[in-house]
């Protein structure tokens, strides 16, 4: 599935946040959210990014699409170095993001049709008269009925809203999709629907994913390679099989051991005395 050409190259990227401390707020400390991260994503590949809350995985995703200012380092997209001050418009056509909470990322007063038409119009993706048709195509692409376009976000369930979020991200026909915890807020049975949608879209459109999640199951299911992040740094990166079957870093091992296996015959966390004895 992967070719040898890296689509995204992240080189020693740092994202620091200044915080004012000291008397009269004169001193400045830094929170090192992302602290020197380097990795590549190849075209058509899915890289999973796992780690616990506060490890900097979301900040990294947001830095890549320019939502957070980059403190140091370089990001290359398709061989070109990104300059987030000047390349905003062309960048947004290449890289898009899907957020965790689809509800709060949709304007409650916009119909789904408007939500999808807006980027098409602003970026002149299709001629004005073709917009309604394109909106319907996008809805079908993510498995929503075309009648959805005249309805409002609150009329949809969580899973359907996430489909809208994905459709919106796809409206600009990006090559790289950053998925920031896209299924964490959804019910178990809906998570699988959305995961399968991601897989299907990748096959149809040749998309490249950076899939950020804290759930190991989801990441394992969708990723070709996995990067494990801890305290702002990538501590280990490898193929999904290597990470799960031959983890090298102590933190990766801890993470894997802590993950509850959905199989009671393989309990790894709780070694308990047989309670059945009570009966």
């Amino acid at each position, binding site marked *: 599935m992967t070719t040898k050409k890296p689509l995204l190259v992240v080189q020693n990227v740092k994202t620091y946040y200044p915080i004012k*401390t*000291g*008397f*009269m*707020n004169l*001193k400045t400390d830094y929170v090192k959210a992302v602290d020197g991260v380097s990795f590549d994503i190849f075209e058509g590949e899915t890289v999973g990014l796992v780690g616990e809350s506060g490890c900097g995985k979301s900040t990294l995703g947001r830095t890549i699409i320019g939502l957070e200012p980059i403190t140091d380092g370089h990001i290359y997209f398709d061989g070109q170095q990104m300059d987030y001050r000047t390349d905003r418009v062309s960048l947004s056509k290449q890289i898009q993001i899907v957020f965790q909470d689809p509800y709060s990322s949709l304007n409650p007063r916009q119909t789904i049709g408007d939500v999808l038409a807006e980027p098409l119009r602003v970026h002149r993706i299709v001629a004005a008269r073709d917009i309604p048709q394109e909106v319907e195509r996008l809805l079908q692409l993510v498995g929503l009925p075309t009648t959805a376009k005249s309805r409002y976000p609150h009329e949809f369930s969580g899973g359907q809203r996430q489909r809208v979020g994905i459709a919106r991200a796809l409206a600009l026909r990006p090559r790289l999709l950053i998925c920031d915890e896209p299924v964490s807020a959804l019910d178990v049975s809906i998570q699988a629907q959305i995961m399968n949608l991601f897989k299907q879209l990748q096959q149809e459109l040749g998309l490249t994913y950076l899939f950020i999640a804290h759930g190991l199951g989801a990441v394992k299911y969708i990723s070709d390679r996995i990067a494990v992040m801890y305290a702002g740094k990538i501590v280990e990166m490898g193929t999904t099989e290597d990470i799960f079957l031959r983890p090298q870093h102590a933190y990766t091992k801890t993470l894997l051991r802590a993950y509850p296996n959905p199989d009671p015959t393989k309990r790894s966390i709780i070694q308990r005395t047989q309670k059945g004895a009570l009966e």
Partner: protein
Amino acid sequence: MIGYIVRRLLIAVPVLFGVTVINFLIMRMAPGNPVDMLVSPKLPDAAREAKMIELGLHEPIYIQYWNWLKNLVVHQDLGYSMITYEPVTTMIWDRMGPTVLLMGVALILGLCIAIPVGIYSATKQYSKLDYVFVTGSFLGISIPNFFLALLLVYVFSIQLNWLPSGGMKELGSSGSVTTLIIHMILPLIVLVASVAGRNIRYVRSSMLEILGQDYLRTARAKGVKEFFVVNKHGMRNALIPIVTIIGLEIPILFGGAVVVEQIFSWPGIGQLTLSSIMNRDYSTLMGLNLVAAFVVIAANIVTDIAYAFVDPRIRKSYVGGSKR
């Protein structure tokens, strides 16, 4: 914490300075001056000139301000009234007592009504009594002070002749506590109506928000009685925003004093302010302005400190700010 207070006080100095400059300019832009009040228009212009020089009003305006400021900073002196020749400091100090007494009692009584009523209203949301309280609080807010004052005077002083219509004591008497209380009743009703009116709504909405919080469910789950769930666990949290409101109440009361004190001839700061404005008594007005600005700033600082006492999270950030 101390570092924080020092910082706030340091910031207050330029604010006070700015307030006096602006007030000085605005005051001088208003037509008329104290000489008009002191010198009969029949006297020759030379007499007016002499008076102007005596009061220092002949100098350019920035020199006048400079003189006032120098006097304040070097001698800690606010000068003399241009009308009565009394020291401004003494005048303000004499009037401060009655104002603080009236406003303080109004604030305390207002909150004593607003907090329990607000909490009751929130816990019994949409009940009949809740509607009664909410309507009452809207009435309290929307009836203008002067109107309620005049209405009360008309009913209780003129028609029923139960209560005096103004002053702090009977003319010629030294004034006992009882007569003081009797004189306070009407102005208090006016002030309490607006304080309680405003705050019932704040307390109610603040409490309503708290009632939906998870930690109240935790308290119930550990077996806390409903009364304490609301009045201990809920109230301590609802108090946090209310503290801010109390801080805002102080300047409002201070400003509102002008109207209420005038109507009830209450010998306080408000009445002094109004008469000084009428007489263009520049030096007294400057003193009053300074005091008013100081009260507002002090109320803000006290509010922030009180905030830290009721909310441990804020306390932490203050301590962090001065320690590190």
